[in-house]
């Protein structure tokens, strides 16, 4: 359980600068999620924390101690890789026990700890199998088991669920959250899955091109995105952006409105539109409309709505829910 601080962290690969000055405070016991588009530097930032890459400049502190120059083993962090990175030639038991063995713990201690971890993770029946003989979810659990046995100061996860199918992903998501609760450990979690970020995080860090765009709780990011980028990135379906006359009327270069904050009325309303296509999800319907004034928009409606393509309708934007942005993409509050 630890606090991790990043001070002006930069990382260049040759001439390519991947992390451009990140300051971040990762609280003790928190669940922090890094999100951002592919290639924005999430993994790199995590690996910098882990000690698998050198910083070009800046400092990393764990519990106030400067670990910038320490190797990965001395930082006492554990990492769960996207590929699980299990040792294929070792049994599950030895995989989980490996960090303890490296720490020169006695056989008895190792055995007890492995047993306990296996119990927590429902792996008791598989201890003597090789990773190759396990399902994806089981492998994932072994990787987590290997991380928890050494009681690290913090857990680092790099897209741990992206190789699993949808149902398993939901289940593992819950398990990891539960683990977080029961261990009370600091966890840093990289994902580019919206839902994972929103549901799991205490705090989300939105990264873009190696910079922190915004840090905040999921609802803060949803309700008060500080930039156009964050507004577009958080929320699904994406926020609608409108520029031009309507935006100027609100005193902004661009305004944004989420699909769920657009109301549909009959054709007599202020903004006219026609339905292009509707996606029925059961609980909701996403209606894609074309509007002469505003261009293409997405609207979220109830599940049982009739929405034949070509139907004309009118839209009303909830004025309290309009986000305003200036020409440089910064939010105007």
């Amino acid at each position, binding site marked *: 359980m630890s606090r991790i601080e990043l001070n002006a962290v930069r990382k260049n690969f040759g001439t390519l600068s991947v992390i451009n000055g990140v300051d971040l405070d990762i609280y003790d016991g928190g669940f922090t999620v890094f999100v951002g588009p592919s290639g924005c530097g999430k993994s790199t930032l995590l690996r910098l924390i882990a000690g698998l890459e050198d910083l070009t400049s800046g400092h990393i502190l764990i519990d106030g101690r400067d670990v910038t120059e320490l190797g990965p083993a001395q930082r006492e962090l554990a990492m769960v890789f996207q590929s699980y990175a299990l040792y294929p030639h070792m049994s599950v038991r030895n995989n989980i026990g490996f960090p303890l063995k*490296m720490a020169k713990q006695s056989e008895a201690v190792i055995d007890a700890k492995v047993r306990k971890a296996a119990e927590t993770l429902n792996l008791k029946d598989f201890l003597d199998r090789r990773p190759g003989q396990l399902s994806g979810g089981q492998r994932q659990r072994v990787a987590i088991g290997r991380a928890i046995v050494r009681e690290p100061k913090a857990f680092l996860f790099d897209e741990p669920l992206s190789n699993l199918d949808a149902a398993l992903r939901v289940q593992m998501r819950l398990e990891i959250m539960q683990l977080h609760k029961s261990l009370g450990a600091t966890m840093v979690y990289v994902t580019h899955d919206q839902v994972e970020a929103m549901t799991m995080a205490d705090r989300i860090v939105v990264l873009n091109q190696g910079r922190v765009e915004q840090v905040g709780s999921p609802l803060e990011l949803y309700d008060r995105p500080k930039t156009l980028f964050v507004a577009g990135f958080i929320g699904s379906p994406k926020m609608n952006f409108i520029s031009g006359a309507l935006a100027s009327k609100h005193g902004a270069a661009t305004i944004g409105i989420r699909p769920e904050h657009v109301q549909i009325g009959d054709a007599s309303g202020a903004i006219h539109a026609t339905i292009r296509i509707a996606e029925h999800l059961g609980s909701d319907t996403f209606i894609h409309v074309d509007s002469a004034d505003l261009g293409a928009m997405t609207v979220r409606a109830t599940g049982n709505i009739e929405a034949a393509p070509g139907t004309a309708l009118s839209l009303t934007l909830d004025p309290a829910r309009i986000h305003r942005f200036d020409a440089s993409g910064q939010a105007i509050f």
Partner: protein
Amino acid sequence: MTLVAWTIGILMFWPILWTFLTSFKTEQDAVLMSQLFSTGWTFENFGIVQERSDYLRFAMNSVIIAFGSTLLCLLFAIPAAWSMAFSPSKRTKDTLLWMLSTKMMPPVGALLPIYLIFKEYRLIDQHIPVLIIMFMLNLPLVVWMLFTYFKEIPVDILEAARMDGAGIWQELSRVLAPMALPGIASTFLLNVILAWNEAFWTLKLTDVHAAPLTVFIASYSSPEGLFWAKLSAASTMAIAPILILGWFSQTQLVRGLTFGAVK
């Protein structure tokens, strides 16, 4: 189709089969082509060869030189290949290709200096110096083969080991080596075969004391009356061990000999 393939297969193998069969014949039978199978089977050729040329000593030398040089190769090549596969730098590609090009230097380019050095320092016909030449000769190939095998191991796993607190030695010995074992084994095998059959430097740099089987066979190059059965017996004894190893390694052979260009 089956018939054609079998015919070609047997034709290709014929010289080896013929040698093998001849080695059990009497010298009189050996020169009778009409006699595929001998009338008088005998093992005495093997005994004569051993007695006349001391086969076992040459075989022992072959083992020492082939296995010794290969082990030495692995000792140097495993760290080098590990480094190039998992921590490549800008120069890694050039280094690999340069190593390859040293393998392509014709031996006559180095023959005279090496020969003179060996003569000057009385190294001719000594085990260790020949073994070292063989080691340098095959080092590039071993590095290359190991490199292509190591490349297939995800770097994540080695990083996980580092996170788990493994030091460099433990990373190599407990994680990389066991995972790469099949690759290391086939590299070992192929290199033993190449070293066993190397017949330029061994012919020039050894004589009796440290000479391997290539030299042993060369001593049968001058014809002397009826000697085919003995020649065949000697040949059989020289090639049998390595042929069997070769059969085991043939699936891995291609990758090794084409430097990963064909898999």
